[in-house]
Every structure is written in structure tokens, then in C-alpha cells.
């Protein structure tokens, strides 16, 4: 366990060094946040039928999304892992006497947490000071906030498990272009980081509720804004937890299977 923790800490501290990248990220996220919010405000002003979230709920959701984007997105792929698979340096990793899956898992977790630590505070502070209707709102209640934190924690582990899964799939397909990239794109949409899940067409909402992706960030964010009531969020959190366990198990099995026939290309 201690080895994994050291691995995690190493990646976390390394990740904290990339401060100028973080500033660039923050400014981009501010801009995108504003654009999205203005689009939604324009939509809300024009009116519509059966709008699933109130404007202030939507805006808070969007800011949480931007502030935590580095943590909850799947599109920043771990290039290092893909490179290991592509160039065969994975053989060094295999020489180490530890479970490769968990080494990768804690490595990705460390990187994600470092990236979000750098970006999170400036965004949260500035956006909560913005005037109505642009600002980030308070959580629906104190209990709501606690449940949000719990659900977000499981969500972060879930997104880590998924991020590790993509290079493992690449072990079989050899190139991450094509299929794997396509998977990541679809997973990102279904996680609600592009449009919140309640805005999806009904049939897609149904499909997405049995898939793991919306449990990464859509669930915690909707608990925070109060779009999902506290007493009705127990079942989704259980599903969230089951998916986490399931994905870790799948990741481990798939890795064992794919490693059996791994071919190291040159050396």
C-alpha cells in the first residue's frame, strides 16, 4: 500500500509544478464558462416548454463543471500511459513487482488531483463573487453539500478507473486512434460535461442512466444544486459505487488478459 501512496504523492507533487499551464487552463475555462452561460441565458430568456433545470441551477452546474473540469473530464488522456503501450516501455513497468493496474490507477489519480488543485480555487472564488445571474450559487443545503462531497469522491475514483481503462484497451488495439478516441468522446458526452444530462432527449437519458459516465460528475453536481433531492439520491450513489467496483475489476481482468499476449515492439 505504501508503495502506491508514494507513487501517488510523487505524481501529485510533480503535477503541482505545471503552474503556467494551469493559468492558461483557468483563463480558457473562464472564457468557456462565460460563453456557455450567455448561451443558456439567451435560451432561458427566449423561453421554452418543460425546461428541466432552473437558470440558477444550470449556471451553478456549469461553473462547477468548469472548476472541476481537470478532474472530471476524460478527454485529457494520460499520454504517458499511451506512450508506454505504443513504444513498448511498458516492459519496464512489467518488471516492477507491484500490481500494474493499481500503479497506473494511483498515478492517474495523483495527476488529476494536482491539476484540479491548481485550477479549482481561483475559479471557485472569482465565480462566487460574480453578480447575479452569472455567479456560482451556494449548495442547496448543508447536508446536500456533504452528500455532494461524498458523491464527488466516488466520482473522481470512477473517472480515474475509466481513464486507466483506455490505455488498457489500447493494449489490444495497438493504436489509440480510431476506436479508443471515439470511446472517449462518447463517454465525455454521456458524462454531461458538454450538456447537463437533464437536457438530453429522454431515450438518451435512459441509456445513460445505466452507463457509468453520468455518475462521474453529473450526479454530484445535480446534488449540489438541488436538482436531485437528498432522499432520492441514495439509489444513484449506490449505482455509482457499484460501477466503481465493477470498473476496477474489469480493468484488472482486461489488463491480465491483454498482457498475456502483449508484444513489445522492438526495444
Amino acid at each position: 500500500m505504501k508503495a502506491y501512496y508514494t507513487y501517488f504523492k510523487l505524481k501529485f507533487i510533480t503535477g503541482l509544478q505545471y503552474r503556467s499551464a494551469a493559468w492558461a487552463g483557468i483563463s480558457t475555462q473562464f472564457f468557456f464558462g462565460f460563453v456557455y452561460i450567455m448561451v443558456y441565458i439567451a435560451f432561458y430568456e427566449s423561453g421554452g416548454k418543460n425546461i428541466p433545470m432552473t437558470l440558477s441551477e444550470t449556471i451553478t452546474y456549469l461553473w462547477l463543471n468548469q472548476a472541476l473540469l481537470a478532474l472530471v473530464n476524460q478527454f485529457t488522456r494520460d499520454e504517458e500511459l499511451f506512450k508506454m503501450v505504443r513504444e513498448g516501455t511498458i516492459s519496464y513497468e512489467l518488471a516492477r513487482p507491484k500490481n500494474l493496474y493499481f500503479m497506473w490507477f494511483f498515478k492517474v489519480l495523483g495527476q488529476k488531483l494536482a491539476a484540479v488543485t491548481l485550477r479549482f480555487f481561483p475559479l471557485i472564488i472569482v465565480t462566487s463573487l460574480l453578480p447575479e445571474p452569472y455567479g456560482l450559487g451556494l449548495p442547496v443545503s448543508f447536508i446536500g453539500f456533504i452528500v455532494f462531497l461524498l458523491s464527488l469522491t466516488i466520482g473522481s475514483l470512477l473517472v480515474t478507473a475509466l481513464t486507466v481503462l483506455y490505455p488498457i484497451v489500447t493494449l489490444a488495439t495497438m493504436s489509440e486512434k480510431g476506436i479508443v478516441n471515439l470511446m472517449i468522446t462518447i463517454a465525455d458526452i454521456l458524462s454531461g460535461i458538454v450538456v447537463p444530462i437533464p437536457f438530453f432527449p429522454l431515450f438518451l437519458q435512459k441509456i445513460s442512466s445505466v452507463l457509468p459516465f453520468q455518475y462521474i460528475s453529473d450526479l454530484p453536481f445535480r446534488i449540489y444544486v438541488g436538482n436531485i433531492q437528498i432522499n432520492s439520491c441514495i439509489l444513484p450513489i449506490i449505482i455509482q459505487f457499484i460501477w466503481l467496483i465493477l470498473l476496477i475489476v474489469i480493468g484488472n481482468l482486461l489488463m491480465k488478459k491483454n498482457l498475456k499476449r502483449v508484444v513489445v515492439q522492438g526495444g
Partner: protein
Amino acid sequence: MKIYFKSLAMHLKGELEYRVNFILSFLSQILVFFTYYFIIIALFAKFDNIKGFTMYEVLLCFSIIQFGFSMNEVFARGVDRFDRLIIRGDFDRLLLRPRNIILQVLCSDGDFVKSARVIQAIIVMIVALLHLHIEWNIMRVITLLLMLLSACIIFFGIFLLAASYCFYTVQGLEVRNVFTDGGKHMAQYPIGVFSKGFVLFFTFIIPYAFVNYYPLLYFLGKKDTIIYGLSPLLVIIYLLPCIIVFHLGMKRYSSVGS
């Protein structure tokens, strides 16, 4: 010009060497880009309109922007990835040749997988046009063509500006995404839906509004003045300072060595 097309053909041949990979990437591009359109369609299922613009009007607007952006990704890849040229020191080689430097940068790279996006944009545009009941006349046709042209030019100008920045920092600029990707995301909606400050910035500093807002108003018959229809021509003027900035940057260039 002949040189440019010849080098494009070479890049295309190069890519087609890996045929399966090319086809797969091509298909995945189409699916990936469907997601952008999906957002618009999903939101219009819940809302009636956005500041008076209907879904097909927004789709038309977006497909034009998408067309301009993707055309640049296919044909001006070298400018888009200019930081690579500088970092690898390949730019020095280009400087030694007795040809126009921007032309040479254009020749240095091409990405034909992205033509999937161009085709997709054209398809979406046709679908939107079919649903819009436009009273066609010669001026409207000219306006539409001007919009398409100016969409290509504006992104070329922005790519060029971002490329000039590499002369100073060597590394590519991440903030440039705000103006390319961010601008693209924003310009998928008619600029008029945004608040005043944004509209002013994107009229006078980066003239997206002349690509997809003022001409769009004329095209859809919301405004009758012909000036609106011809306003994309202003974007061509915008290209001049971009080229000048690029040449100024080049004077400051000192090689990174290789």
C-alpha cells in the same frame, strides 16, 4: 500555387499509405463532430428559440463557422502546428529557400482526415438551407459564398497570429485556444445572442460578427440593407495586419538550433 497543390497531393498520398487507419479516423471524425451538432439539437428540443433564431438558423450559422475552421485544419495545417516547425528547427530550412515563406509553411503539412469535418459541415449546411424557406436571389447567393469565404479567412488570420506568437515564446500558446476553439464554440451561435461587450469585442477586435452575424441577418431576410450582406468583405482586410504581424515576428526570430 502549383507548388502548394503538389505538396498537398504528397501529404494526401502519405496519409493514404495507411489506408485502414485513414478510413477509421475519417469515420470517427464524423462521429466526433456529430456531437457538436447534437448539443444544438438537444437544447432546441427543450427551448423554442434563442433570441429569435430557430434551430436551423443556428445550424446554418454553425456549419459555416465549422466549414471555415475545418478548411484551415485541412489546408493550413502547417500554420496551425507552427510551433512544431520552430521547436524542431525546421523553420530554418524554409528560410533558406527562395519562395514566399507563408506559402512554404502552408506546404509543410496537411491533414486530410479532417476533410471529414468539411464534408459534414457542408451536409449540415444543406440540410439547414432546405428547412429554412429562403427566398433565393443573386445577392443572397453572393452573401452565402462570402460568408463561407470569410469563415475560412478569419480562422486563417487567427492561426497566423497564433503562429507569430511562437516567434517570441517558441512554445505554442495555450491561450490561443480561447480565440480559435473558443471563438469557434461561440460563433456557432449568432453573435447577437451574447452581451454587448462580447459583441463589440468580436466585431472590432476579432471580427467574427462579420462572418456569421451581420451577413446572416441579411441572408435570412431579417435586415434588408445590402451593406449587411457585403460585410464579410471586411474580414479580408483583417488578414492584412495578421500577415504584417507574422513578418514582424519573423524579423525577431532566432533559431533554436537542432
